[in-house]
């Protein structure tokens, strides 16, 4: 059987701020038997424009992304909110444009968040991955509510030897990131993330895990400002066996 040819949509935030999430995604996908390609013409999915009401720029970036991704069998994204934008919102953007609607729907149908893809499509489980740590997991909103991501990361993390998951009070409550929201209304965002970090600290966990870098940077940035010792990783880093490296905000 020929391995599935998977396009990795890196996301602008991973590209810019934490490339090792992209490399972890490639490593896990290859371990699951995929051939991974990183299409050259990708930048941002356009979510910041879309959520700011800037429909024209959102449509331009959506077209660029669709064109970059449509040659591949599957598209995998290490972010619930970017995958949600492609899967749920691209077809909405082109609801009055028959040609692009068809193309948007085709790409939407084959785009998956990475942990959903590994768990549900590949049926993959981490093998021989060991990390002695106690982690807690935050369910990022777009992934949870647009894509139904809840059990998949937990099923996968369950196969990391030595890792235990501490329940997080309010694990489905927004962390206050909200894309541009956190800089447009910083005081509200701060009040929300302050409650989140308090809940994280109560778990006694060593590690904070989630599936979206935006939310992770928000929570990790607040934890660091407060002097917390909790270290933050994207869950795919642990699943790819890279949980022994630097956490968010740690120098290699």
């Amino acid at each position: 059987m020929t391995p599935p040819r998977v396009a990795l949509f890196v996301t602008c935030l991973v590209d810019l701020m934490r490339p090792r999430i992209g490399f972890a995604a490639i490593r896990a996908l290859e371990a699951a038997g995929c051939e991974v390609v990183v299409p050259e013409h990708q930048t941002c999915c356009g979510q910041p424009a879309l959520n700011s009401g800037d429909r024209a720029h959102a449509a331009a970036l959506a077209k660029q992304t669709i064109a970059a991704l449509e040659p591949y069998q599957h598209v995998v994204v290490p972010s619930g909110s970017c995958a949600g934008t492609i899967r749920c919102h691209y077809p909405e953007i082109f609801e009055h444009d028959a040609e692009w609607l068809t193309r948007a729907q085709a790409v939407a149908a084959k785009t998956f968040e990475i942990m959903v893809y590994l768990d549900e499509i590949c049926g993959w489980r981490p093998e021989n991955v060991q990390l002695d740590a106690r982690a807690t997991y935050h369910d990022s909103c777009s992934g949870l509510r647009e894509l139904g991501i809840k059990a998949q990361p937990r099923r996968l993390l369950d196969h990391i030897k030595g890792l235990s998951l501490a329940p997080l009070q309010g694990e489905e409550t927004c962390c206050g990131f909200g894309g541009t929201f956190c800089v447009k209304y910083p005081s509200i965002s701060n009040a929300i993330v302050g409650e989140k970090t308090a809940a994280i600290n109560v778990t006694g966990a060593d590690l904070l895990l989630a599936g979206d870098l935006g939310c992770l940077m928000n929570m990790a940035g607040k934890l660091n400002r407060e002097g917390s010792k909790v270290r933050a990783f994207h869950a795919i880093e642990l699943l790819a066996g890279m949980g022994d490296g630097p956490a968010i905000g740690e120098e290699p």
Partner: protein
Amino acid sequence: MSAFTDRVDAALADPILKIAVERTAGTAEAKRAVAVAAFPDFEAARDRAAAIKDHVIAHLGHYLELFEANAIAAGARVHWARTADEACKIVIDICKAADARTVARSKSMLGEEIGLPHALAEAGIGRVETDLAEHIIQLADERPSHIIWPAMHKTREQVSALFKARHRTPHEEETIAAMAESARRELRGAMLGADVGISGANFLIADSGAICTVTNEGNAELSLVPPRVHIVTAGIEKIVPGMPHAIHMLRMLARSATGAALTQYTTFYTGPKRPGDLDGPEEMHIVLVDNGRTKMREEGLAEMLRCIRCGACMNHCVVFRQIGGHAYGGTYPGPMGAVLTPTLDGLPDSRDLPNACTLNGKCQEVCPVRIPLPTLLKGWREKSWREGLEPVSMRAGLGIWAWVAARPPLYRLGARVAVKAMRLLGKRGWIGALPLADGWTRYRDLPKPAARTFMDQYRREKRQ
């Protein structure tokens, strides 16, 4: 800074507000979860509730005319108001014709929306708010901060002090029962002595001409039955075809609002006192208010007309839980208020509301009639962007970024420069202050990016 952000900062600086909001909304959230879990197939019930509302909204004219004919047949008089001012004028004229000196009012958000308390004051008509929380608000000369619990922003300790200052024979014991008794002493006589009773309606029943009110205090019944005249002000979207639909919506409303199976008092009023009835008002007037609702139906906000005013969206909203209801500045707070206020007060004065939302989708998840609130909020953001209401800095910043992002080679170069610049500002892995991103670094640190972008590292690896 805007008036909204000023109100937000004042709210965030008030520790008592946070306690008050958390007590009520936190309890409501927990109780709703229990009620919904115990309900057989709540998801199917939500589908049915949304379908009922969509049907009546699509056939609004038909059901309103049916309601009017049946209400008239039951002896009520029906009035139509296009605007808030028209609605207030109709109510004031009815009060004047009845020589009313005082009215007893049973809590109605539509009354707040049309500015009825103010209109009554201007007409020199005394107003007694008979809902306990509205009574508190009236004593404190404030506005409701929540559509179900108007005095949610006050703690019971604050209410106790208010009652002691303002009630004629206030409570002595610091218990909730004693405080309620104090309010009862204050209000009962006023209710029984009022000339006119004014209420809203939770539902208008088309096939019988009845109106429905729900309360947990029985104040509606006591405000509406003894006076000579009962005036109902209701939004035209409150219509349902018949009693089975009203009952279904009631099951959704009570559980979504407070987690109770049913409100303590659920009353259907069909016309005024009939010959042979022992009590009831001599006249019943029903004022059907549009105030922007047909415009909402035409302008892509039809789904918002499903709203049954349960408050679940705000109880579960992370932003509302931090800033409370007054910060929103309109009649209706929270997610539903952020959709309604631009319609009622105009987008230029309320553009902050649809923007001050993380789009986390929790409100939509708990809405008993499945209103796609985040989608509707994004609709307002688009309109605000199109009409040039968004700040110039935001428009310029996003425009430049999107222009560059649409040119991948240039974008790679820009990303390389951005990474280098950010790394210069970082210390031990973190950036504590970043120019142009003060909103981020004022409250949290920004992780220092890696030396090279993913794309640069990936290209290097592939070449090797």
